[in-house]
C-alpha cells in the first residue's frame, strides 16, 4: 500500500513496489522503448510508419492501471504503450515492430496493428475512428454472452470528426453498453488543430449530447488519469452504460516519422514539454520524499535493460517463411 492506497498491479513483469513507482516505471518503459524504436527506424530495422506516444505516456499508464486484466482494450495506431501496459511482453512488441514471426501479431501487424488476443488487446488500428464501433460490438457481445466486463476504447480527438465516433457513441448510449471511451486529446490530428476541425471544441459536450456521462482530465498527470479512469470504470461497471473521458495531452514528437510540423510553433511544444509527464511526476514524488534520484535512476536502468533485451530478442528472431504469405487469409477447410 502507498499514498494512493493501491498496490502495483501484477502483469507488468515488475517486482512489488509502491504504486506510484510502478506508474513511473511504466511511463519510463514506454518512453525508453519508443526512443529505441525511433533509433531503429533510423537504422531501417523498423520500416513503414511509426507513431510515437512520447509526451502522452501518462494517459495509457494511468488508464491501464485502472482497468481489470479481463477488460477488452481497443487502441489506435499510436498504441505501443497501450499494448505494453496491457501486458504484451516488450519482446513480442519489438519483434512485431521488426515484422518478425515472433511478434505479437506474428509479423502481420507491424507498429500500427499490435494485437494480443489472449490479453484481450483488440489491436492498434490504422483507420482513424475504426476502433469505436468495434468496441461497441465487443461490449454488446459481452452483454449478450452474459460476461461482466468493460471495453476500453482509446482514440485521438481527430476521430471525433469521423461518422464512426457519432454512430458508435450513440449506439453505446442507446443500448447502455459498458464501453469506456478514452479520448486522448493531444490537440492536433496530424496537421490539423482541434479548433480548425471542430465547431464544438469541448469534446465532453459532444459526448454528453448522446447522454453519455463525461469527465475531463489532465492527461499530463498520471495520478489524475488513473483516478479519473478508475471512477469512470466504476460507473460503467455499476450502471452498465458508457462513459467518456477526455485526457488533455500533447505529443512531443512529429505525427509520424516524417512531418515538417508546419502546423504548430516550437514555443507551444516547449511549453507543453515543461509539463512532461515523466519529469513532472518524478519531481512531484521527489518533493514529497517518496522518491530519490537513485531510485529514479534505478527504474530508468530497469527500463533500459528491458528494452535492450527486447531488441536482442527481435534481432535474433527468425523471419516468417515466405511460403507462409498465403496462410491465415481465410480459415482453411472451413467452407463446408
Amino acid at each position, binding site marked *: 500500500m502507498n499514498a494512493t492506497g493501491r498496490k502495483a498491479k501484477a502483469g507488468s513483469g515488475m517486482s512489488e513496489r509502491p504504486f506510484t513507482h510502478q506508474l513511473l516505471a511504466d511511463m519510463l518503459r514506454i518512453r525508453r522503448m519508443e526512443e529505441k524504436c525511433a533509433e531503429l527506424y533510423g537504422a531501417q530495422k523498423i*520500416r*513503414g*510508419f511509426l507513431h510515437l506516444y512520447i509526451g502522452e505516456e501518462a494517459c495509457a499508464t494511468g488508464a491501464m492501471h485502472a482497468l481489470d486484466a479481463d477488460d477488452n482494450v481497443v487502441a489506435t495506431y499510436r498504441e505501443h504503450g497501450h499494448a505494453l501496459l496491457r501486458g504484451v511482453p516488450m519482446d513480442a512488441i519489438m519483434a512485431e515492430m521488426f*515484422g518478425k514471426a515472433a511478434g505479437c501479431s506474428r*509479423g*502481420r*501487424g*507491424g*507498429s*500500427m*496493428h499490435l494485437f494480443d488476443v489472449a490479453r484481450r488487446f483488440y489491436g492498434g488500428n*490504422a*483507420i*482513424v*475512428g475504426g476502433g469505436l464501433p468495434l468496441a461497441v460490438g465487443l461490449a454488446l457481445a459481452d452483454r449478450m454472452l452474459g460476461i461482466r466486463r468493460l471495453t476500453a476504447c482509446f482514440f485521438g480527438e*481527430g*476521430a471525433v*470528426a*469521423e*461518422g*464512426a465516433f457519432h454512430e458508435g457513441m450513440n449506439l453505446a448510449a442507446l443500448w447502455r453498453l459498458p464501453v469506456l471511451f478514452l479520448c486522448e486529446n493531444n490537440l492536433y*490530428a*496530424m*496537421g*490539423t488543430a482541434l479548433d*480548425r*476541425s*471542430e465547431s464544438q471544441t469541448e469534446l465532453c459536450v459532444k459526448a454528453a449530447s448522446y447522454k453519455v456521462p463525461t469527465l475531463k482530465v489532465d492527461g499530463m498527470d498520471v495520478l489524475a488519469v488513473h483516478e479519473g479512469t478508475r471512477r469512470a470504470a466504476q460507473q460503467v461497471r455499476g450502471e452498465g452504460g458508457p462513459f467518456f473521458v477526455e485526457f488533455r495531452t500533447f505529443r512531443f514528437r512529429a505525427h509520424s516519422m516524417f512531418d*515538417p510540423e*508546419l*502546423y504548430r510553433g516550437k514555443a507551444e511544444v516547449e511549453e507543453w514539454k515543461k509539463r512532461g509527464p515523466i519529469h513532472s511526476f518524478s519531481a512531484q514524488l521527489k518533493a514529497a520524499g517518496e522518491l530519490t534520484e537513485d531510485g529514479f535512476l534505478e527504474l530508468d536502468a530497469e527500463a533500459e535493460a528491458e528494452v535492450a533485451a527486447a531488441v536482442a530478442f527481435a534481432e535474433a528472431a527468425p*523471419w*516468417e517463411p*515466405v511460403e507462409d*504469405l*498465403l496462410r491465415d*487469409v481465410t480459415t482453411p477447410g472451413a467452407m463446408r
Partner: protein
Amino acid sequence: MAELNLVEAINRALDWEMAHDPSVVVLGEDVGVNGGVFRATVGLQERFGPERVLDTPLAETAIVGTAIGMAAQGLKPVAEIQFSGFIYPAMDHIWNHAGRLRNRTRGRLSCPLVVRSPCGAGIHAPEHHSESPEALFAHLPGVRVVIPSSPSRAYGLLLAAIRDPDPVIFLEPTRLYRLFKQEVADDGEALPLDVCFTLRAGTDVTLVSWGAMLNETQAAAEALAQEGVMAEVIDVATLKPLDMTTILESVARTGRCVIVHEATRTGGFGAEIAANLAEHGLYSLLAPVQRVTAWDVVVPLSRLEHQYMPSVERIVAAVRKTLEGA
C-alpha cells in the same frame, strides 16, 4: 520545360488549372497549411487562398459528399484522400451519388469531381497505405478511373480529369511520386482520357499494365529484348473507359498478351481485359492470356512486400509461357 517528379507534376497541374479556372477548388485533410501528406498541394493555399484550398476535418464521408454537392453547382472540386485505404468512408458517396447524378437527372446535372488518392505498395508502408483498389471503382457505372505512370502523363491526365464533366477517381502510385523525374511542359495541355498509351513497340507479345507496375513491365520488356523477344508495352492509364481498341490491335499483331497489375488477382482489372480479349480477340491469340498480379492477400509488411508485388522475373516467366511451343 521543367524536370519534375510525379508529385511535382501533380502540383503543377493543380496550380495551372486553379490559375486558369476559378471554379477549381481543392479540399482534403491537411491539403492547405501542410500542403498534403505527400506535399502534392504545397503552395496552393498561399497562392489561391483558404477559400479555394480547404483544410477539412478528418472526415472522408464529408469530404467527398460535400465535393459532390459543390460539383452539382458547377464547381470543380479536387478532393484528396490521404491514402486509398481511407477512402472507404467516402465510398458511399462515390458509389451511391457521384456516379449517378447525371443518370438521375438525365444529364441535367453532372458531377465534375476529381478524387485524388495515393495508391500502391513499394514504400514499405503497411496495409491501408499500400493497396490498389482500382477495380472497385472501375466496377461502378458513371465513374472514370485514371492511374498515371509518369510525371508527364500525371500532369496531362490530371488536367483532363479536372476538365472532365464526370467524376474521376485519380489514383497516384505512391512509389512513383519521387522515383524519377521527367521533362514536363507546364503548358496546360491535357492528355486524352479515352486512350491507352503505347510505350514501346514490339512484335512478339503485348504487355498491358498501368501505374507503378509499368516500371517492372518495361524492365521485363528490356530483359526480353536481350533474348530477342520483342514486347510491346501498353500503359492503360485510363481504366475506365477502357480503350480496348489499342489493346486488341496490338494483340492482333503479336498474338500474345500478358497483363500485369499490382492489385490482388481475383476480380482485378486484369480479368476485365482478359475477358475482353476472349470476347473480341480470341482468334488472334496464339497462346492463353497470362495475368501477373499480387496474391490474394493483405499487403504484407515491408520485408515481404516485394514478394507481394509482381517482379520482373515473374513477368518474364509469364511471357515465356506464352511463347511455349512457338
